[in-house]
């Protein structure tokens, strides 16, 4: 496959995707970069002026900024932890012989098909609502005060909702990984005297390492951009308790119509995302060869 002809063909074939994405990245990013140095409020289009680093400074000194970074991390890590651990557990369970396996799988996979705003609406109104939600009904049934989820545990609530949406994805990938585990290896370990727990720790987990990295990579990409669930449920509050970086930018762009500030925030987010990406890609790249 290594002839000059194929190599040049390959370049040609790669080109459209690369060029498209390059444009897709550079044009808006370039414009964003430009805007980030402007005093530009959409509601005041007449008074656009050069701002220098002011937007960055302003965004950075926003008291919400560090909260947002912390919340972003907590959200990403929380969801990852739940989906990976839960995904492994569920994958192990549904890999076992069970009656009605097909239906069980269909049920488990379903949340993945629900669009994020709808998922948030469902959880907010029907499940976690402090007076009409199912959780409240359950609480009342067992005689405790219903929890006002979005007020008392805003970030946790969002993590639960997002984790619910991504659990199927993690489960599916981990399940395929699990099913590719070599049966003979397991038998060898059994012969070697390893019990079920040892086999899980010493064989199953390491075998799934790659799948886990993939889950982490893909989900991180999507989780960094979560905002719809926040918008629908807590609007980032109370206070900044559930404001993540994306939502902070959202707030600047859509509530304040502060294009300059949002652009600066966007650039900061891109830089942070790329730092995350860098380490992630290192880890994953190694794991994908």
């Amino acid at each position, binding site marked *: 496959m290594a002839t000059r002809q194929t190599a040049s063909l390959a370049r040609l074939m790669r080109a459209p995707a690369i060029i498209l994405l390059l444009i897709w990245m550079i044009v808006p990013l370039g414009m964003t970069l430009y805007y980030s140095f402007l005093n530009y409020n959409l509601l005041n289009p007449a008074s656009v002026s050069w701002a220098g680093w002011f937007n960055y400074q302003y965004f950075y000194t926003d008291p919400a900024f560090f909260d947002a970074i912390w919340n972003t991390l907590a959200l990403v890590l929380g969801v990852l932890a739940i989906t990976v651990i839960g995904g492994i557990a569920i994958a192990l369970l549904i890999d076992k012989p069970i009656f009605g396996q097909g239906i069980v799988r269909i049920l488990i996979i379903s949340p993945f098909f629900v669009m994020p705003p709808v998922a948030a609406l469902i959880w907010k109104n029907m499940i976690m609502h402090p007076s009409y939600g199912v959780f409240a009904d359950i609480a009342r049934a067992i005689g405790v005060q219903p929890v006002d989820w979005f007020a008392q545990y805003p970030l946790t609530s969002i993590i639960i909702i997002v984790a619910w949406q991504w659990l199927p994805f993690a489960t599916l990938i981990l399940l395929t990984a699990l099913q590719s585990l070599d049966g003979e*290896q397991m038998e*060898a370990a059994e012969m070697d*005297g390893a019990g079920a727990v040892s086999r899980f720790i010493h*064989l199953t987990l*390491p075998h799934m390492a790659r799948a886990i990295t993939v889950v982490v990579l893909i989900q991180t990409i999507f989780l960094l951009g979560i905002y719809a669930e926040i918008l629908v449920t807590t609007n980032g509050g109370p206070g900044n308790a559930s404001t993540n970086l994306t939502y902070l930018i959202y707030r600047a762009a859509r509530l304040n119509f502060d294009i300059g500030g949002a652009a600066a925030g966007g650039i900061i987010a891109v830089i942070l995302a790329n730092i995350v990406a860098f380490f992630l890609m290192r880890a994953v790249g190694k794991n994908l060869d």
Partner: protein
Amino acid sequence: MGRITLEAVTKRFGDVEVIPPLNLDINDGEFVVFVGPSGCGKSTLLRLIAGLEDTSGGRILIDGKDATDTPPAKRGLAMVFQSYALYPHMSVRKNIAFPMRMAGVPQDEQDRRITAAAKALNLTDYLDRKPGQLSGGQRQRVAIGRAIVREPAAFLFDEPLSNLDAALRVGMRLEISELHNRLKTTMIYVTHDQVEAMTMADKIVVLRAGNIEQVGSPMELYRAPRNLFVAGFIGSPKMNLIDGAAAAEYGAHTIGIRPEHIAVSPDHGKWRGRVGVSEHLGSDTFFYVEDTGLADTITVRAGGNIDLHHGDTVWLTPDDAQMHRFDATGARVA
């Protein structure tokens, strides 16, 4: 220390009886090879002994104790798998140490045994590599190393060499034989390669569809196959089997004569034929002789220096003393 007895062991998968009641005695220190065509139940039988499958009936005794319901880890047997079944994320050292770690063997004892096994198997330089960085033969040795350190009552091998290429296979075959000579531990070895069976076994068990066709030393099987199946299965190239008039002449339904027991001559002999493909191996030449009227082709082994070409007419003379005779049911006629 490694006596294994199967008493009327049977195995069914669903409705299919893969192993009909089967009795077998394996003595301590013996090298027993199970051979047979694909799907005949060799692996199943081995896995029954290992405890990786439940028996559907009968008893398995290890050193006289009933082990039918003992879990695999407790039977004191070690198994080497066809796919090596190494733990890919552990180094060679960790792989070999794994069964000892599970058994709680103290660290220094572990180290001692690993060093010894690595030395015996020529793995000392690779102890810190991962299995992925090893060649097929080396991987197989690691798998054996992992078995050795457990100091098991018996080793079970399921086609351990079938993933290796021809040259390596010869080497590993020798290594396993040497290992057996040194350890004198019972070994049960599954293969469908009859060369392996012949060269390694103290005792060969020929299986067909879960039934034992013949049990005996390799030479017993070679010299006196009990039926057509064993005759055709043991020996390489295959024994020539001839029906019809030529067989009737010997008072049999079928006669069998091995390629090495036929003399070739360009001008005289008993049967006439035409040379088809011939294979010159240097030391030997195999002729596939066609149009003899006896069978499709008759395989003949001759010395390295015979000069016959495709299409030449040849004469073949079987060595009557080495002739095998079978009746219509396929059973050997004394």
